């Protein structure tokens, strides 16, 4: 079975599991109220809004059994809940508390869920987490090696300048197109007017803590000038080895070191470049190894997203989501197909067929960075883009070209403004376009990062950042769509830039791919393994100057 078929099956299975056996299951009984942070639950000790409040310890998950429903004399309806206090609850309740009964207003955003659904998701969580980590593990070494080798094999710095200029121009143009499309669509459909006053408050309450922290991080964002200064690393090794690696700094260092390699006279740097080229090969092989667990990882991740956000939240935000998703589709189909078809003269249908694996990975992991290794492989193997173009355009694009994110931010900003009843002028909307474009350049392609930049965009036009809470419930799902649009945009850029560099991209269709073990993404692990024999140093490797016969980057040789 082809890899992306397996991934698709994993996704469909996750979807079904999430709908039927998740906490918000459509068939199972809702028997508990669950909160990751117990302190946010508005609990009362008696069925009355005036009754004494019970605040559970902050930062500790709380799970309360549903006993029944009661109505206060004033007509307010409550869920009747009970729980046995754990060790940390005893601090607030006193050590003699055995079984506590509390009441939760039905109007609160916290609704009962199926306890076994929570358990199922908890069991599945490690599978998804391991898959995410496996892929993330490869990002830094892969980006550094491939970018450096790519630049070094360009040979001529002036050539890089032209390629760089073209790439940046294409990125900027598509990003501005995307966000304009988003703003226009949101103005026409007006998704904000579909939300009633009650739902507005319920949504905000459910995600208030997450939203405020997002808002806080947004306001911490450095200025535009500082953003540019920060691209130059103080210590490139620190940029690579930080827990959250700074991709822009790594890209900068790889670029400048690659240029440095081409400037050293003779063939002195040839060994270094060819070594990194081979490390890069090994990293690519590790991507293929990780893909073996992709279907299971995708299954677990999708089940979690669908199971936790569920239908109740989704229903209120469907219109907004549809607008974003529709806009994303429109952008992908019109702009990318147009660019690929007319500028690069590549058959659009073939393009859409071969980029499916990369799209599905970024779709299911909500991250274009995670899909980068596979996207590079797709560009090289299945789209026939040369190494030096793909290794330049794709890592750079993953970091600075986020069409999907930009489009979503346009729609989201307008949607939130509409919900809060703020009328945005044309000037304010232009401001959104500008800020969202810059914001989409400065953020890494990691899940959930769009939320932080959205807070920044909202601040710039004076819309309350608390509005981020409104769309957080569906953010993960939309994140999937916009990440795959980001990946598509990068691949389209790679094809267009390659064509403009005089290359002729050719499509390797999945059928032809499956027939070969030495190219494409199918069946790459079916080759025989070679044992390494340590110790016996053949003399040709001991001399730094010696040429290894398997080197394929022969441009530097001519300089001698």
């Amino acid at each position: 079975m082809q890899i992306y078929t397996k991934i698709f099956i994993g996704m469909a299975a996750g979807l079904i599991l999430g709908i039927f056996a998740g906490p918000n299951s459509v068939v199972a009984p809702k028997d508990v109220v669950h909160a990751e942070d117990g302190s946010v639950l508005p609990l009362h000790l008696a069925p009355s809004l005036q009754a004494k409040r019970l605040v559970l310890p902050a930062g500790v998950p709380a799970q309360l059994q549903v006993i029944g429903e009661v109505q206060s004399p004033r007509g307010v309806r409550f869920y009747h809940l009970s729980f046995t206090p754990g060790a940390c609850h005893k601090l607030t309740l006193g050590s003699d508390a055995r079984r506590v009964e509390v009441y939760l207003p039905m109007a609160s955003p916290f609704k009962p869920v199926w306890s076994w659904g929570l358990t199922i998701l908890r069991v599945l969580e490690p599978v998804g987490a391991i898959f995410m980590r496996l892929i993330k593990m490869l990002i830094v070494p892969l980006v550094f090696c491939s970018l450096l080798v790519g630049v070094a094999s360009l040979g001529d710095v002036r050539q890089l300048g032209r390629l760089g200029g073209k790439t940046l121009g294409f990125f900027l143009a598509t990003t501005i197109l995307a966000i304009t499309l988003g703003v226009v669509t949101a103005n026409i459909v007006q998704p904000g007017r579909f939300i009633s006053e009650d739902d507005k408050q319920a949504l905000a309450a459910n995600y208030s803590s997450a939203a405020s922290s997002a808002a806080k991080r947004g306001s911490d964002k450095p200025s535009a000038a500082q953003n540019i200064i920060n691209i130059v690393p103080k210590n490139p090794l620190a940029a690579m080895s930080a827990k959250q690696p700074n991709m822009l700094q790594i890209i900068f260092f790889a670029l400048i070191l690659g240029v440095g390699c081409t400037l050293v006279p003779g063939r002195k740097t040839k060994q270094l470049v060819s070594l990194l080229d081979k490390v890069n090969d090994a990293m690519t092989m590790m991507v293929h190894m990780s893909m073996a667990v992709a279907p299971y990882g995708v299954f677990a991740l999708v089940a979690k997203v669908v199971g936790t956000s569920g239908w109740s939240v989704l229903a209120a935000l469907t219109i907004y989501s549809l607008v974003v998703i529709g806009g994303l589709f429109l952008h992908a189909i019109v702009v990318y197909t147009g660019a690929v078809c007319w500028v690069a003269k590549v058959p659009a249908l073939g393009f859409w067929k071969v980029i499916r694996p990369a799209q599905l990975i970024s779709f299911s992991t909500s991250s274009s960075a995670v899909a980068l290794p596979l996207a590079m492989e797709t560009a090289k193997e299945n789209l026939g883009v040369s190494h030096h173009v793909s290794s330049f355009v794709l890592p750079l694009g993953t970091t600075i070209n986020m069409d999907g994110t930009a489009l979503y931010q346009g729609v989201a900003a307008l949607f939130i403004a509409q919900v809060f009843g703020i009328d945005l002028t044309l000037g304010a909307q232009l401001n959104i376009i500008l800020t969202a474009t810059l914001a989409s350049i400065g953020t890494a392609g990691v899940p959930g990062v769009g939320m932080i930049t959205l807070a920044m965009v909202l601040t710039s036009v004076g819309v309350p950042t608390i509005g981020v809470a409104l769309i957080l419930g569906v953010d993960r799902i939309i994140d999937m769509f916009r990440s795959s649009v980001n990946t598509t945009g990068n691949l389209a850029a790679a094809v267009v830039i390659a064509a403009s560099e005089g290359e002729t991209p050719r499509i390797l269709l999945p059928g032809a791919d499956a027939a070969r073990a030495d190219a494409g993404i199918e069946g790459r692990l079916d080759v025989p393994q070679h044992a390494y024999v340590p110790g016996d140093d053949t003399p040709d490797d001991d001399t730094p100057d010696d040429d290894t016969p398997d080197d394929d980057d022969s441009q530097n040789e001519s300089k001698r």
Partner: protein
Amino acid sequence: MKVYQKILLGIAAGTLFGLLLGPQSLLLKKDTVHVVDPSRVELQAALGDPASKIRLPRSATTNFALVGEHSVGKAGAGKAGRNLWYEVKFTLTAKMLTGGGVPALEGKRPALGETRRAFLRAADAPPPSSGLGHRIAAFIGPIGEIFLRLILMLVVPLVFTTLTVGTASLGNVRSLERFGLRVLVYFLLTTAVGTAIGMALALLMGPGRGIVPTEAALLAEQFNFLVSDATSQVQKAPDLVTFLVQIVPDNPLHSMASAQPNMLQVMFFSIMFGVALTLLPESRSRQVLHLLDKTSKALVMVMHMVMAVAPFGVAALIAQTVGATGYRIFGPLGSYLLLVVVGLAIHAALSTLVARRAGVSPQDFWRAIRPAELLGLGTSSSTATLPVSLAVAEDNLGLSPKLSSFTLTLGSSVNMPGTALFQAAALVFIAQAFGVELPLATLATAFVTIILLAVGTAAAPSAGVVSLALVLAGVGIPPVGIGLVVGFDRLLDMLRTPVNLAADFAGALWVAHATGETPQVLTDEEDLATTEYGFEGRLDREQAPYERRAREDR
């Protein structure tokens, strides 16, 4: 003199020095209260007046000169009771003044270098010790620390290069699976045996039965100042599933480059990298593997350079550990200490038997592994010993590095039977001392918990105490009970590391034997005769300068 003899001499000198001139020395006068973190102690300018509290910053480690002792409130409370106060003198330093917690005295603002008199609550502070001993310890401390850093410096690059090359040499992922499973089963078994020995010995000998619960509380309270450290770290410990998920690194460079490198993550990445290299055509992987192979050879040479200063480093480390424990081992808790030592000896004997099954005689086994064993004793860390362990396995035991590097690296992170033994014995001992019944079901739960924690505990010095707090919480004993054993922890840590190492080596031998390898133990004569391998004379080789080829290029 041979390398191991020099280290042995260092250990002997360090022990003697620590006993005679350490802070707990019997010879020196106990005239000082040494407080590592003064922000945690109750310090009052006027006795019994909380308003006169002096607040010192965390980092201002202070030697308080002891002037006298005062009992407040009802009489008859024990020595370590909550109403005993030390009258102390101390000099104001710049660090103390920046904290701003020192109140004015008789209208005068506190001045640098001024001597203050104050009262220190005994319950918060360690018992009095020798001020001279502390000054000596502070002087020799850096020597040990530098040595520890020298050897720790090698661990991450050596593990990465050795494991990648080792995995690539295996050449077959399937064989890695089979052999990895065998290693894991061995580690679980040896940890379970260690736990069982600790529990059985403690239950049979009952070292805690002679102690009355009230006395136990007093003894434990003596070390109250150490307990809060251990319990505060308990909450950070991840559960088993998170632990397993986090074996996969987020960013392998972060795992390698952070101050506390995550060895399991480095291992995971190295093994996967090695497998990926075997999947590539030979022409694509050879250059990378050659470079890694040669780097690891260079690092081994650096290790031999570090071994040249090991006697001094080990002497300093041991002097500190022994000096801090002192003659306390002969106190009421001595029987417990003896029990753990006996248990550790039994476990080491069992490891010897495993090695014998693999075809290495006990004498040969201990002679071959003694550099690593002695270094483990000196550093109390199997991770720090890893560079030496890898060389011992390859040179002295004659094992092929492709299998032994994997077993030893994994073993240094997850195989800690000595730690498990200590925890099991400590659990039973503390329960007996506090008069807590341990029914069979509780013992069984504790048995499983200890094994899992021993596997999951990071191989850092004294990590065992942190997981002991978790085990105690699991069976319902108050964490203050740790106070009974925490005073010896550094000393026991020193003793259990060699036992952990012996189990690792025995495992490496057993696995090699099962896969058809024959270990070739290096004799002393062979070692002395060559500078190519072994531990003797490795630095006596001629240096080969690196020739720059710049001229040829021009």
